[in-house]
């Protein structure tokens, strides 16, 4: 009998120990995911959206933004990059809290109507995916100084997707050519959403 009782007691202690271990591990794993790097705030800017309304940092605030730079006549990486963005756009169809911001690096050619057609080609039906056009010099400054991206515009623009949180802070850069990186992006968006 004594044996059985001590067996039961050590069993209970073991389960208690396991529960504490599990809580600590799960909690630190969760915290480590919330703990996204913060690359600082993006600067204030205001461009024009394809619909003709002014759009900038103020409009990005309060939402989780996935930002990229592109131009419509780009035959290289842009179509693939934006097809990946389109996938995400469809994935987040049920949420108004996640939006996509694509900024043209060739405002000379990319008129609002061209941007509108480009959006339609990618299956954009609502205003969760925004296409912005602004003066070239401002776009250059925003890309280089604001988003800290390299590359001569327009041809050598970055193919990174940039995660910007609801406070307008850059929280990560993701490679649109890498499935793992995109997977990571969706995990990060989920964590940011939990916090909102």
């Amino acid at each position, binding site marked *: 009998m004594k044996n059985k009782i001590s067996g039961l007691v050590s069993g209970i202690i073991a389960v208690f120990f396991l529960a504490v271990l599990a809580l600590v591990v799960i909690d630190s794993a969760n915290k480590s995911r919330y703990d996204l790097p913060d690359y600082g705030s993006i600067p204030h800017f205001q461009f024009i959206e394809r619909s003709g309304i002014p759009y900038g940092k103020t409009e990005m605030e309060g939402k989780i933004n996935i930002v990229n730079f592109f131009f419509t006549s780009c035959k290289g990486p842009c179509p693939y990059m934006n097809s990946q963005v389109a996938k995400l756009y469809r994935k987040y169809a*049920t949420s108004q809290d996640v939006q996509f911001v694509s900024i043209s690096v060739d405002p000379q050619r990319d008129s609002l109507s061209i941007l509108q057609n480009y959006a339609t080609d990618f299956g954009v039906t609502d205003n969760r995916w925004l296409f912005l056009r602004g003066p070239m010099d401002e776009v250059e400054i925003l890309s280089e100084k604001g988003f800290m991206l390299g590359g001569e515009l327009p041809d050598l623009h970055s193919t990174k997707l940039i995660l910007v949180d609801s406070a307008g802070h850059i929280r990560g850069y993701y490679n649109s050519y890498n499935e*793992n*990186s995109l997977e990571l992006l969706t995990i990060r968006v989920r964590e940011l959403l939990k916090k909102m």
Partner: protein
Amino acid sequence: MTEKKMHQFQRLSVFTTVATFFLIFVGGLVRVSGAGLGCPDWPKCFGRWIPPLHAEDLPAGFDAQSFNVTLAWIEYINRLIGVLVGFLILATAIMAILYLRRQRRILIPAIFAALFVAFQGWLGSVVVSSLLEPLLVSLHLLIALLIVSLLIYITQALHYLKDGLLPKSTAVNKPLRNWIVILWVVALFQIVIGTQVRSQVELILSDFPLLFGLQLIERIGLINYVHSILGILFMALSIIVALMLFKKSEFRILGVVIVLLPLLQISIGSAMEIFGIPALLQVFHLWVASLIIGVILIIFTQLSYTEG
């Protein structure tokens, strides 16, 4: 084999069995905390035998974005415990080869346990390189259950060997043993379904990353119902087995345990439905499943050796 050696072997096999159950718990914890890809490579972690502590220490070729020091270490500690358990099982097999060569019913399971554990280590690397393909993750769990079953059998066989007991003829306790086999098959089947429920949750999350808790459960669909109904069926089966066990004085405690564990398991499962799959409950749900498999094996072996 001297009595002293026998005693050492017994202690080794008990310790190895307990350590394996602990490893199954840790493995579940890795799964639930989402640390399975904490190290993108295998067996090293970010190209190092000791994972880096800071993103700046990453060797060239690794993306700093994918580095999370907490997840890397959770996964790596799982691997280290896995290696330790692997060595314990290897030691068990070596003991059996050295001292119990003629006891086939101990030697053979011990060698198989060692072979399975080597396979399990290799499978671990495949799981990582497959980016946690659901079927492979489930197979990884099933092999773990198989290994722990062999270890339980070895531990008990050693115990009976020491007392000079041999397995009874298969005619002894036949109907009850048949029931136990059915219980074991249903349990394994139920575990496979359970892993598929989990995979389904992940599939839903990859399509609808915005669903949380209860909304998520609603979408799991058919397989979740199957899992619940089979759980109740298993409970009923275990009550039948328990009633039969109660008639044998030596089996009363096991009879209680084989009812209490499924009851606990159903409670955890129901709590997961109510509270939206909290991580802590997931870990225990998986672990209690492994305990149930263990208890079924203990009962079966004991029934093979004693008339009760």
